[in-house]
């Protein structure tokens, strides 16, 4: 930083003196923090400020001394983290090249010296789509020598799944097997990834500052093959984020499954008035929900802990009741929580029981229970402090947005199904869905923030035919799509394939789809209502039956969207592959390659959870 002068920066002499004074007093961690802060300001400021160094760095061609940042995640969290890291690293003077794993030609890996990978895990330990090509490459029988590569992985995951951060672990293993070396230990992040990711960033930057050539210019970012769309974020959006959510007022709360339905799905309309928040169809909304006060009282009563007991966590003192209500996870169990809890129970039954379960059974055990069930089934004596340390921090829940601002302006709509876990005959609701659907009233406020999902957008070319496949509340983003198309007066061929138990009660937003069909915006609707027929019928059955028609749409350039549960996504992809194999007379492998090609070309887009 000492080299900062009027030649290589936009600052005046006086500013440079001031900056040198201030920056000189900072330790590496503080510098890293400040770089992040500035990056945030930059993202929120004028685009030109960020783009300028991008252009100036474009001449850099040598890979030597470059810190490569690769990211792959289904939701865009990985990309956000990568961008944030890249900005901080660049401000620290590192030469950084950041790109999605889809843009990486695997063979290029051999030429690289330094790389970090930010990668999430999905479903049962699966890597995100963008990483599939790399995994295939590394798992192939090819001879691949990555002897020169030094790398570090940041793995994103969710402890409530059994294969926690598996994709990150696996990637590390594959790279090591090919001769690459890690320059520091992998970091696995739970849903609450910001703090560990921040530490990881600071450490990598520190490492980079020591090991890598640094540019004389203060901010160098090597552009990815295409400029990151990230940089076009609308200014004011940055004011509201996960840590500082916008208090959105609930304007409407309406159950949209019929009287006799076993599903409990609500349509929520929230006001974003004066927030300046702008979202795109396909984006998600992060929602901070609180635990049910009654559940909190129950848990504390079971554990014989006085709700008013004060506990110190991360330097602040709060009552255990407040912590459980607003800060700690009570409805989603994780293997960690269960394991720690088991060691504190009075008997050995839980530990013994857990040891007797295989992975599958263990997952089922977790899915069927909330913390209260565990406490009732396996009583324990815990101090308030121990309880606070045992439970994971409460994390916001994320919902695909069901509206387009072109149609609803300063509102955001969500489609929320009440989630249940069934344990020992007790039906318990998920934290956010219960909060949204049952405890909130119109007029209440709820903390929200945007989670852009650049990977699930309408095609730029609005005449591209769209095949929209969804089960359950997965239909939400398509409502946003059609609202957008209608508002724009665009009229691509669109085809909705939707599944849920019953046509009569569970076709979410039925009137709207039928209206769009009547006006010609929707060319076709196929419902797969599983419980309406003797044999269960799901969306994948439609995809298989309609293979020929789907192929015709594909030939016409159609883009396929998939939204809903992971299992549905898998089944539909398989059906698609089988359909293509059958229809084009291909071997299964060749058909799989066609599907992989669609995925690579971003013609098969997924939002699965």
């Amino acid at each position, binding site marked *: 930083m000492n080299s900062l002068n009027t030649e290589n920066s936009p600052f005046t002499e006086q500013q440079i003196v001031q900056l040198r004074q201030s920056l000189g007093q900072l330790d590496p961690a503080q510098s890293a923090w400040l770089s992040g802060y500035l990056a945030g300001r930059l993202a929120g400021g004028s685009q030109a400020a960020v783009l300028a160094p991008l252009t100036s760095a474009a001449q850099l061609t040598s890979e030597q001394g470059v810190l490569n940042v690769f990211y792959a995640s289904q939701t865009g969290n990985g990309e956000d983290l990568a961008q944030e890291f890249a900005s901080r690293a660049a401000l620290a003077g590192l030469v950084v090249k950041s790109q999605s794993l889809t843009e990486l030609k695997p063979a290029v890996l051999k030429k690289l010296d330094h790389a970090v990978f930010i990668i999430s895990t999905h479903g049962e330990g699966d890597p995100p789509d963008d990483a599939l090509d790399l995994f295939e490459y590394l798992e192939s029988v090819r001879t691949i020598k990555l002897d020169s590569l030094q790398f570090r992985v940041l793995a994103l995951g969710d402890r409530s799944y059994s294969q926690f951060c598996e994709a990150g672990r696996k990637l590390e293993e594959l790279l090591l097997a090919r001769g690459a070396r890690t320059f520091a230990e992998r970091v696995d992040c739970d849903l609450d990834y910001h703090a560990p990711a921040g530490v990881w960033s600071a450490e990598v930057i520190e490492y980079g500052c020591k090991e890598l050539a640094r540019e004389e210019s203060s901010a160098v970012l090597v552009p990815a093959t295409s400029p990151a769309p990230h940089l076009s974020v609308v200014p004011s959006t940055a004011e509201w984020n996960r840590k500082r959510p916008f208090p959105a007022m609930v304007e409407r709360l*309406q*159950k*949209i*499954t*019929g*009287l006799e339905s076993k599903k409990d799905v609500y*349509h929520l309309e929230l006001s974003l008035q004066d927030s300046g928040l702008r979202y795109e169809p396909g984006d998600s909304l992060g929602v901070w929900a609180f635990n049910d006060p009654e559940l909190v009282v129950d848990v504390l009563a079971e554990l014989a802990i006085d709700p008013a007991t004060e506990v110190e966590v991360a330097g602040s003192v709060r009552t255990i009741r407040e912590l459980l209500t607003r800060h700690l996870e009570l409805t989603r169990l994780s293997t960690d929580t269960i394991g720690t809890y088991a060691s504190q129970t009075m008997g050995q039954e839980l530990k013994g029981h857990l040891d007797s379960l295989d992975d599958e059974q263990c997952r089922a055990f977790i899915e069927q229970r909330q913390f209260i069930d565990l406490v009732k089934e396996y009583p324990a004596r815990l101090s308030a402090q121990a309880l606070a340390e045992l439970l994971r921090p409460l994390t916001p829940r994320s919902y695909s947005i069901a509206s387009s601002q072109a149609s609803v302006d300063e509102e955001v709509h969500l489609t929320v199904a009440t989630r249940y876990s069934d344990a020992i005959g007790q039906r318990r609701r998920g934290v956010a869905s219960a909060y949204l659907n049952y405890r909130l009233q119109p007029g209440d406020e709820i903390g929200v923030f945007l989670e852009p999902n650049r990977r699930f957008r309408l095609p730029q070319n609005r005449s591209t035919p769209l095949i929209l496949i969804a089960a359950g509340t997965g239909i939400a983003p398509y409502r946003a799509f059609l609202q957008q198309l209608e508002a724009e007066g665009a009229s691509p061929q669109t085809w909705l394939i939707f599944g849920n138990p019953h*046509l*009569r*009660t569970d*076709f*979410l*937003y*039925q*009137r*709207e*789809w*039928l209206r769009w*069909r009547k006006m010609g915006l929707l060319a076709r*609707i*196929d*419902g*797969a*209502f599983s419980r*309406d*027929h003797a044999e269960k019928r799901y969306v994948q059955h439609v995809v298989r039956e309609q293979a020929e028609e789907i192929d015709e749409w594909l030939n016409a350039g159609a883009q396929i969207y998939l939204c809903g549960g992971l299992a549905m996504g898998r089944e539909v992809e398989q059906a698609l592959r089988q359909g293509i194999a059958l229809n084009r007379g291909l071997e299964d492998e060749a058909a799989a390659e066609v599907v992989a090609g669609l995925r690579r070309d971003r013609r098969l887009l997924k939002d699965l959870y």
Partner: protein
Amino acid sequence: MNTPSEKLTAVEIIKANSNFLRGTIVESLQDSASSAIAEDDTQLSKFHGIYQQDDRDKREERRRQLLEPDYQFMIRARVPGGVCTPEQWLALDEIARKWANGTIRLTTRQAFQLHGVLKRDLKASIRAINDSLLDTIAACGDVNRNVMCTPLPEASAIHRQVFEIAQTLSEHFTPHTTAYHEIWLLSEHGREKVAGSKDSEPIYGPTYLPRKFKMSFAIPPRNDVDVFAHDLSFIAIAGKDGLEGFNVTVGGGMGVTHGDPATYPRLADMLGFCTPDQVVEISEAIVKIQRDNGDRSERKHARLKYTIDDRGLEWLHDEIERRIGYRLAQDRPFEFTHTGDLYGWQQTADDRWHLCLFLENGRVADKGGSRQMSGLRAIAKVLKGEFRLTPNQNVIISNVNASDRALIDRLVQEHGLDNYRHASPLRLNSMACVGFPTCGLSMAESERYLPDLVDLIEALLVKHDLEEQAITIRMTGCPNGCARPYLAEIGLVGKGPGLYNLHLGAAFNGTRLNQKVRESVHEAEILALLDELLADYSGSREPNEAFGDFMLRSGVLQSGTEEAAV
């Protein structure tokens, strides 16, 4: 034929373009996004015996839920003359429980109705009905509907003859289109056409009739079919040697539109007498005259009654003569005594027994402690005779051997089917249409409300010492007249939620229409007026004078309403 200047109604165009009632019904059945069929198909499905309806109790709720209305279907099965076998009853009972709302509705025109059938179960239901050798084609729509016949005359020999002629007419006027077979019965996808057939409708032509057409046969002294309420009716004339022929009446009809004075209920005109072998020929001539001359530009004005009023009865006589070469003979004398059913056991000359049961408003159900549906199922399993649906929405357990009477009686009592013994004469002479929540035309409650109103009127009858007096009372949820309310001594026609037009003064034997005395009145106003009139009736009536007749004699109503030429 229609003059070219006439603008055809939308329904006429749908019929003309339907390719003999096909429309896009097959595609509609396959649409997996909606529980409804296409709008045009809802007109055509009627010809197949299927009405699209929705649960109106749920309309508002579902609108807020962003769900389409709770679409479901009513299926009407034709039962010519009301006679059905125990096997057919059991089949209907099973279909009702499996695919409909678990009840069977007996109609005022001797047909079965199933309600609440979902689109996905339509085909299976229609197939099962046809498997039982009943059918649903022409149960609704602009064609000749179910042919009615007095179900049990005391003279069983004549009944057999009349019933057979009724059946012949029913078959004669069944549409010839193969669309019904093709859509509902043939292949899984209903795509194949019936082999080697080419559709034609020798009687109806490709656009069928301008409006529905109703036929009935009455055997005096019973007028249970309400002979004067139909487009074309036959009143059996018996002599020493049995059936001699029929008096023919034309141009009856109930349907009215609120606030449209150009519409009105009308009693049929007497046309003359014909012999049994002339029935088919005369009927065909009259149906074709209506086909060619009925108003196809205005459905509210398309029934035969308006054709006759527009052109005169003489014109009709001439037209018939032009088509069949002769005029009808002079009508013969006859006498009607009542329109209601005779409840309880009756013996016929062939030493068979017949038990007429009272089913309030024709609803066969197990609900609220009632086990009537189970009871009739149990009876159907042991019955060696047959069931006869009456024009008053009731059922007769018919052709029972003397030795089986005790068994039937036990089943009747065990299942609470013996209310014909205890119910008041007023209730036993009550009828209501289906109305809410399924009927799309309904403006006020009908079947779900009349039993309560009858309770209240019974209290008035007790108060005025009239509890043994039979009075006909009929309620409909709209002015279209399914329960023939304009022929009841007390007629109530739905106008809006909780509001009815009150009609009084019809003849007990169905030969005189009533008159509207109050418009849009609530229950309290209805009861207050009836209280006053019944007090008067109780004090001043003559022996055996019916309530409706008293209304005229006492001067409460002006005479001069239309009376059938009896």
